[in-house]
């Protein structure tokens, strides 16, 4: 089965992101396909490479990045939500005149249309949120 995943909450405050991670891992292990993971609302905060939690805690952003690399998975951060919350890639840095960027490996910034397209293309859409 082909899944689309929406993550509506940031890391740590809410369990939603880790639940999504666990779901995605289990789905891949069971042979399913993840069409796309779309990060929305505070979920965009999963896409920064600047988190450094204590060593005995999970690094949620890095785990997403590693999973994306291993499975060639599409991780999309909503541009409108990202702009509000300061998640920036090279293109956004240049467009908005910022002095740096913070997008994590394996994530890309794109529009809300990517969420709708994922819903259309996937067999099931699963939303993780509050």
């Amino acid at each position, binding site marked *: 089965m082909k899944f689309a995943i929406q993550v509506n909450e940031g890391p740590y405050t809410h369990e939603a992101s880790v639940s999504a991670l666990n779901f995605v891992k289990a789905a891949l292990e069971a042979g399913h396909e993840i069409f796309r993971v779309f990060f929305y609302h505070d979920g965009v905060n999963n896409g920064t490479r600047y988190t450094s939690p204590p060593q005995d805690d999970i690094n949620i952003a890095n785990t997403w990045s590693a999973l994306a690399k291993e499975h060639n998975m599409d991780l999309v951060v909503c541009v*409108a939500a990202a702009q509000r919350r300061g998640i920036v890639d090279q293109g956004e840095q240049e467009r908005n005149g910022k002095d740096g960027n913070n997008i994590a490996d394996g994530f890309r910034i794109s529009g809300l249309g990517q969420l709708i397209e994922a819903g*259309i293309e996937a067999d099931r*859409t699963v*939303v993780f*949120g509050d």
Partner: protein
Amino acid sequence: MSDVKKFCYLNRKAPYGTVYAWESLEVVLIGAAFDQDCSLVFADDGVYQLMKGSDTTGLGIKNFSPTYSALGDYDIKKIYVEKESLEERGLSLDDLQHLVWEDEDEDYAEKDSIMVVTKDELAQILEEQDVVLSF
């Protein structure tokens, strides 16, 4: 692109206290361009999103409540509001904005978009959806 799917946007949170209502509306407006079979559901505190007369002057944040009246122009014709959620909050249809869409086939007659449905009817509506995006 595949066949048309039934997309439902499920709104369960009050506006302004958190950003979910506004960012949900942004998805709805973008999603309208994809020509899917769209409906909106307002339940629990989400029914407050459609209240008449919202004024955010004292909050100092953008008032997006007038945007709901534009949904008809985006071809959103089905807005379901859960009856029990209204009643539990002492609200009725009269407390909500009058949202309409124009029927091209009937000389652009204005038709009501909001349908008040029971919890059981809503369960059936959600059951029929291909995609439910919840906010």
